[in-house]
Every structure is written in C-alpha cells, then in structure tokens.
C-alpha cells in the first residue's frame, strides 16, 4: 500500500476503511509506543496503553479538526491515556525514600557513549518510581509546566516540583555513579 498522507488517512478512518486504519496504526504505532514506554514500567504495560490509546484515536477521530498535525493530536491522546492508566494505580505518587536505583557501570567515557543509548535511557527511566517518572516525563520531555502537571495529576504544584527534584536526583545518581565507577 502506498504511503497515504494524513488527510487521506483521517478520511479513510472516518469512513471506517480497515486498510486506512491499519495504515494509520503502522505509521504512528512505533513513535507512540516510544512515548508510552517512558510512562510505563515495562513493555507489557506500554502495550496496554498503546492499545487503549489507538482505540481512543479511532473512536474520537471525528473530533480531529485538522488544525494541527495528526501526529501531535495522537500523541496528546496517548499521553492522556498513559496518565489515565497511572491514575488508576494506587499510591503511584507516593514518596519513595528507600529507593535504590539500579546501577549501570561505565568505566570510560567511550563506554558511556556507546552504551547510554535510547534503550538504556529508557530502561533507566522505567526503573524510577511511577510518580517520579511521570512528573519527569511530563516536565522534561513533554514540556508541561508545573501548573499543567498539577492539574493533570490532581496534585499540588509543590508536589509536582518535589517529585521532579527527586526524579532528577535519582537519575543523576544513576548516571554519575555509572560513569565514575
């Protein structure tokens, strides 16, 4: 099947064409799965989020007005789906005082550069407690403000800032420890 542009994809999905649904899924499944991997604790949880996210995309495609890029619209749906999943988890924002991060050991700078690739960073991120990981994702990568994070997660702005600070500390410890050792 030839590459379809976003408008054709949207039109086909709205008409319920299975070929267009599959084409849209193939085009956006990998980038959206990478987004969701950052919010999930593992591969399986990210797949559950992706499944729910695409069901929402197909269901709510009528609401896509074409003002912005289709990818951006789908990404917002995926992030919201991930947050919905996380909100269902009990105490996902709990303060973890006894958290001991796993250690990647890089003996040289070359070693670090060769191994600290996207997959390793992803696994590092997934090892964080859910609250730290979520706030760090939303603030550092998705570009949310603390007000927006507080609104999305129904927490205070102070809690958002504290969760971000602790997430950074843990990540630094992991990377610094790994690099220094």
């Amino acid at each position, binding site marked *: 099947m030839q590459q379809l542009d976003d408008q054709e994809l949207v039109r086909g999905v709205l008409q*319920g064409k299975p070929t267009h*649904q599959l084409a849209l899924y193939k085009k956006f499944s990998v980038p959206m799965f*990478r987004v969701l991997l950052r919010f999930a604790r593992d591969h399986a949880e990210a797949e559950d989020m992706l499944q729910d996210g695409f069901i929402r995309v197909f269901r709510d495609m009528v609401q896509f007005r074409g003002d912005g890029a289709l990818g951006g619209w789908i990404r917002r749906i995926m992030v919201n789906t991930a947050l919905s999943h996380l909100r269902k988890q009990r105490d996902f924002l709990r303060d973890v005082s006894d958290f001991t991060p796993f250690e990647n050991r890089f003996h040289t700078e070359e070693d670090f550069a060769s191994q*600290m690739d996207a997959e390793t*960073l*992803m696994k590092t991120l997934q090892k964080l407690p859910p609250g730290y990981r979520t706030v760090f994702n939303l603030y*550092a990568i998705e570009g949310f403000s603390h007000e927006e994070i507080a609104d999305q997660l129904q927490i205070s702005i102070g809690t958002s800032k504290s969760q971000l600070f602790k997430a950074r500390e843990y990540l630094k410890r992991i990377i610094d420890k790994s690099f220094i050792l």
Partner: protein
Amino acid sequence: MTEPQDFNSLDELFRKTFDNLPETPAPSGWDRPSDRVWQHVQATVKPPRSGWSTKAITLVSALAVTVAIGLYLFVIRPVQPAETTTPAEQAVMTAPTVETPVETVAAMPAPEQALVQKQTTAPAIQPQQKQKLSAPNTRETEPAASQRPTGSIPLPGSKSAPPNTTVEYMELLWKTPLEPLPVLPKSIDRLPSKGLEKY
C-alpha cells in the same frame, strides 16, 4: 549515537535522545509493539455502518408494513358481484305470492289474465336461490366475481339473466287497446246550477 558532552543537563540528555530516534524501530525490538496490540484494536474498533441509520431503517420498515397491509386489505375486500337480476325482478321474486281468486282473474282483461297465469305457474323461488340472488356471500362468490370481467357480457357457460317480467307486462299493456271509459251516472250531470251561478 549520543555524545555525553553535548548534554548540558539531564533533562536535555533524555529529551534529545528520545526526540532524535530514527523512524524505524530498533533491530532489538525494544521499541516495537507486538502484533497482539493491533489485533485487539482491530477487534474493538467496530466495522463501519452500511450507511443506513436506525431512523432510516425504521422509516422504511414502517412504510413497507403499511404498504403490505394496504395491499392485503385491497385484495381481501368484498367485491360487489355483477348484478344478475334487475331490481324489478328482485321485487317480483321477493314479493309474497298472492293467490289471485279465480273470479278476479276472470274479470280481468286478457293481457292481465295471461300475466297472472304466468306468475302463478312460474316455479316458486327456493330459499337457497333467494339467498343467492339477494345477498351474495362474498367468500363463495369471490372467485366467480373476480373471474368475471366487468361489463354486461356473460361468460360462456354462465346462466343468462331471467327475462324482465315488468318490461313484458308493460309492453303487453301498451299493446292492449284501451277500454272505453265508464259512463258517469246521470245524477252527476245534475249539478246545482243555482248555487254555482252565484260563484
């Protein structure tokens, strides 16, 4: 491949790493979802509608039912059979038979006598025949009536209508010369002239 010296902060390290990923998934497959995801999505997403909304289907169904009922009622409605007898015949047939005394008949003029004799010698109408003629049963007469074309031409094999006795009677009376009027009694000629003159 990411260079550690390029990152000013931890946030930038993660952001740049994840934003600059290639479009194709990694060979190791860490960023590729399994096929079961699409299978679940496909099973959940409903197939497209045929274009017929529930409202349209309801309207079309109601219209079809109405047309069907109308056709049914049209087909089974009672069909008026073509009249086989004239009203005059029916009157004759349904009229009570009056026994005309012999003396009265003898006193009648010749045409009337013949007519009276014809009526008395005619076979009496059986009740079944009466019923058939006066009140046709729609169920029984329906096939015959439906087979019969509209018009006055009788079908082959069908019974011809009985002669119109009223018409015959009238023709007979017309052909019969009139009898002279009876002469008035003389007492009528004597009118009280005196009393009338003053008027």
